[in-house]
């Protein structure tokens, strides 16, 4: 889930992680040394133990100094080849088969087919890659030891660390290569699966005149494709976009076919003469041809249009294209000047007048001159449109948009105003909306998002705001009915700014479960309507801007979390994002491989797999375990130590960021042993166990406490696999930032390094021939 990712800025992340890493490594060294010292002293006595430990430290240092990339690479190559012999082909074949048959079970007419498809391919690849990574690496070293091939390797000057690192590199490059192939196949699969075409029949449009104006709109519905159709509205020029269905929309543009018979008049104001021609335009847009005849058609002449531009989908800045430009050389017979002239003009495209006339108008230029207008000559043409508008107009529905994208959001921080206008927390409407705070409609309550880094350079055309807010209705009624709300831009109070400036409210109607986009222009009226505000000059201070979200209907509620309203900074390439998603999978597999290789230095294959499974489970459930354990510990400590409780109270740790952890709360059911006792005695979580003496119960609770402490300690060093789960980003169309990619990559490198060193000592201290 994306909401778990409150991605820290890289610098902040790096510093805190580096400190944590150093602490953990130091602890590992201390513990490792203590254990080694203890074992050696017990076995050999203090003097010999000292000798042995210095020898171990000395060789470890010399092995580090003598590290050879070539030897490591040799092991990596071998691991790669070994992997190819083993499972890779089978696993890959399985993937291809899954892809082949997936089409049967994946519904392209699902609500959000892109999400479905992308989640499917990424999940499949993920599981296959993880399984393969674990099998490859868990069986490799143990089988080398079992078949004794390790004898010939380890009696060479190759260092234990090089063997481990080589294996990790070899297997992970193999898995990486396989993932790369899977990535390409999946990408094609998703893109092809999403591709579909709609068409529109012009004759089926309904015309609608906007009240009190000359402006007309045309409404229609596209044909059905992939199990859905889109209603749409276009303007007079036939430009517009469809409504969002199945998570995407299409742009619509209209081509006007000017082929057919045209009547021309060429009027010469000098002589007052006016001659009429009939021109028959034919051919296609790319290579048009025209035949012209004067009056009754007695003077045929053939000439080609040089260029003939029409509004295409590409220049779909909808409102502005009202005419199609064209350029055309008229033969001398037509111009009456004894020389050919160039006609540059425009064809007007009045959709409203379909069934009426297209008009053409332009000036004549010297054919080979540059912008030299031939005065006195004008050309005017009219075309009688065919009876069937589909012969003249061609509505083109573009590719799907909004489905396979990688949006780059700028998130803000969120605070709430209560219904009386004072700061507070959002209303909790119960489990359903636990991640969102709610704002009551028709009150002073508001959700305030503060954004940073809002500059005219980043957003020259204003702010594209996207919202995905929750709506909670307290009255019965039509669930489809929208709830009105508003956004207001507010100049925040900062160190350099003391005056609040508010824009007028931008009203919108909620569309729950659908992303809503509101484009905020650079010019916006002030709250009282007295003046025009410039977004960057009047509302943004030091790059900071507040957006206030309110619900405008009494007794209705809007819910928002920090990520629900964001400014869409731009888009990055979907393919790149897809690759980044696979990169996360690769990193995840690499961590698994590193763990497997490390464990396999002292465990058998099957046990290695079990150990790695434990690590993975801990890693995936990390947040839950960590928070739960922390709470358990804190609760016990607060119960047992009034002093601790006072400290927490005076430091104000019960509220704010740490509130979730430090707040005194029930620890229903207790830890492992207590829970087990409760199950056996059939006591639910809230009943006191009175049949067991108080002292005994106390001992059990402390035992549970230390048990949880140990689990918590493990959790600290186990990789947080959920932070590698970026599939949701790709599926929901959000860009995986380079920051996150860098953090994941660095974390993986740290794991590989640490586990290699750990494995080095395990392998060194092992008798491989025993």
């Amino acid at each position: 889930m994306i909401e778990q990712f409150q991605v820290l800025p890289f610098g902040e992340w790096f510093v805190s992680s580096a400190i944590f890493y150093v602490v953990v490594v130091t602890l590992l060294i201390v513990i490792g040394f203590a254990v080694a010292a203890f074992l050696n002293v017990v076995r050999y006595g203090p003097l010999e133990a000292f000798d042995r430990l210095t020898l171990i430290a000395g060789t470890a240092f010399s092995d580090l100094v003598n590290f050879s990339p070539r030897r490591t690479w040799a092991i990596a190559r071998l691991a790669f080849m070994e992997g190819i012999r083993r499972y890779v082909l089978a696993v890959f074949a399985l993937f291809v088969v899954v892809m082949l048959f997936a089409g049967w079970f994946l519904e392209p007419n699902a609500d959000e087919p892109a999400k479905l498809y992308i989640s499917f391919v990424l999940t499949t690849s993920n599981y296959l890659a993880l399984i393969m990574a674990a099998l490859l690496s868990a069986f490799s070293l143990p089988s080398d030891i079992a078949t004794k091939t390790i004898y010939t390797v380890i009696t060479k000057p190759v260092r234990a660390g090089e063997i481990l690192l080589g294996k990790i590199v070899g297997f992970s490059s193999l898995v990486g290569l396989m993932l790369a192939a899977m990535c390409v196949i999946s990408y094609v699969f998703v893109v092809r699966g999403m591709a579909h075409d709609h068409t529109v029949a012009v004759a089926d449009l309904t015309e609608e005149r906007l009240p009190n104006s000359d402006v007309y709109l045309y409404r229609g519905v596209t044909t059905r494709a992939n199990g859905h159709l889109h209603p749409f509205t276009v303007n007079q020029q036939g430009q517009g976009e469809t409504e969002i269905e199945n998570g995407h929309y299409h742009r619509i543009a209209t081509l006007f076919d000017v082929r057919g018979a045209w009547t021309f008049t060429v009027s010469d104001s000098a002589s007052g003469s006016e001659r009429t021609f009939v021109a028959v335009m034919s051919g296609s847009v790319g290579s048009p041809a025209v035949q012209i005849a004067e009056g009754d058609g007695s003077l045929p002449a053939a000439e080609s249009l040089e260029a003939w531009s029409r509004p295409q989908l590409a220049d779909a800045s909808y409102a502005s294209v009202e005419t199609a430009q064209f350029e055309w050389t008229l033969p001398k017979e037509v111009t009456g000047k004894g020389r050919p002239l160039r006609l540059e003009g425009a064809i007007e495209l009045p959709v409203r007048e379909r069934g009426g006339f297209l008009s053409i108008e332009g000036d004549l230029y010297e054919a080979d001159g540059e912008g030299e207008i031939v005065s006195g000559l004008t050309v005017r043409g009219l075309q009688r449109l065919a009876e069937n508008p589909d012969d003249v107009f061609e509505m083109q529905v573009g590719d799907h948009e909004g489905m396979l994208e990688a949006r780059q959001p700028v998130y803000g921080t969120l605070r709430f105003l209560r219904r009386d206008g004072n700061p507070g927390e959002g209303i909790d409407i119960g489990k359903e909306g636990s991640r969102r705070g709610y704002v009551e409609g028709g009150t002073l309550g508001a959700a305030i998002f503060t954004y940073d880094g809002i500059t005219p350079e980043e957003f020259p055309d204003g702010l594209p705001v996207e919202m995905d807010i929750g709506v909670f209705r307290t009255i019965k009624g039509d669930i489809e009915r929208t709830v009105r709300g508003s956004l207001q831009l507010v100049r925040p109070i900062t160190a350099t700014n003391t005056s609040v400036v508010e824009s007028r409210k931008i009203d919108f109607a909620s569309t729950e479960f659908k992303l809503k986009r509101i484009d905020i222009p650079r010019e916006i009226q002030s709250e009282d309507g007295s003046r025009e505000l410039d977004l960057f000059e009047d509302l943004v201070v030091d790059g900071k801007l507040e957006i206030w979200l309110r619900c405008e209907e009494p007794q209705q509620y809007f819910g928002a979390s920090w990520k629900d309203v964001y400014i869409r900074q731009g888009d990055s390439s979907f393919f790149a994002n897809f690759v980044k998603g696979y990169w996360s999978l690769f990193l995840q597999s690499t961590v698994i491989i590193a763990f497997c290789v490390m464990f396999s230095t002292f465990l058998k294959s099957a046990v290695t797999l079990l150990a790695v499974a434990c690590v993975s489970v801990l890693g995936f459930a990390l947040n839950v375990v960590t928070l739960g354990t922390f709470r358990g510990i804190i609760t016990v400590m607060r119960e047992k130590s009034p002093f601790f409780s006072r400290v927490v109270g005076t430091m104000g740790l019960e509220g704010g960021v740490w509130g979730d952890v430090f707040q005194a709360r029930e620890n229903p059911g207790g830890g492992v042993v207590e829970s087990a006792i409760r199950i056996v005695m059939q006591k639910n979580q809230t009943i006191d166990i009175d049949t067991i003496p108080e002292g005994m119960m106390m001992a059990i609770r402390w035992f549970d406490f230390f048990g949880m402490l140990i689990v918590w300690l493990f959790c600290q060093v186990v990789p947080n696999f959920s932070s590698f789960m970026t599939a949701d980003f790709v599926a929901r169309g959000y860009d995986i930032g380079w920051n996150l990619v860098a953090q994941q990559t660095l974390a993986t490198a740290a794991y590989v390094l640490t586990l290699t060193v750990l494995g080095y000592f395990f392998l060194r201290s092992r008798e491989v021939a025993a």
Partner: protein
Amino acid sequence: MSVETQERPLASSAAASTDEIIVETRGLTKIYRDFWGRVKVAALKGLDLKIYKGEIFGLLGPNGSGKSTTVKLLLGLLFPTSGRALVFDRDASDVKKNERIGYLPEESYLYKFLSAEQTLDFYGRLFDMPAKVRKERIDRLIDLVNLQRARRRQLREYSKGMTRRVGLAQALINDPDLILLDEPTSGLDPMGTREMKDIILNLRDQGKTIIMCSHQLNDVQDVCDRIAILHQGELRELGRVSSLLERSNATQIVAQDLPAQAEEEIRAVVARYGGQVQSVGRPTTTMEDLFLRIVSESTARPGRRVEEPVERPDDKPQS
């Protein structure tokens, strides 16, 4: 492969003449314990050995006598329970010593999916050899072990003898100063055995030190300068092969084309000096010599040899 070293060179003892110690064990002991720390097997008990530069040292003993354990301790594949093993003056657990060591394990534990060439290339890389040196060595070693025609085939297709040869080539890839051979002739046919022995002697002549363990006693006798005999983890005998096998109170004469009556005279001479003739007879050639002669003749003159069928009583069907 050449047969030039068929004649045992006189250099055999000369090569081992230096006093440089290559391998030394001091009270080397290996005790296997079970999970509870109880002694299961004492595989090696206080072994003290010194092996000098340029000698072929044989470790002999029945199965389970501690030969392989000794070799594994020297290689650092096992850790001693007490005592020390020093190789090139370094502790056996030091990886650095491996740069000068070649090891042919009891069975060739190699990666079956590699070809001979890839195998040697892989092990060459483990010595951090540059590509050019690797290529040169690989070509030379493949010639040495006679695998030119199979160099690109996967080892899984190899016969046992061929695998053994790749194993040997792998052990020599770094031009080692000390070579440890665990049962070098096991699984080889007589020709292969002879070739292996020739290679071993040749290596010794290049000044290399060789430790081999075997229970093929005649192989040991043929090539080793010194031997140690182990039994139940203890050293029972240590010394030069020549002096250990010599019967100082017996004399052997082998003469050619001697008439029968000469034998009588010799017996008389022996009796005159108070000696005792223990046996007189026709010396037989060894099976190995016979086999090698036949094979080399058939290589020189190919084709089926037509010979009178010899009727043997055993061939007749039982009635």
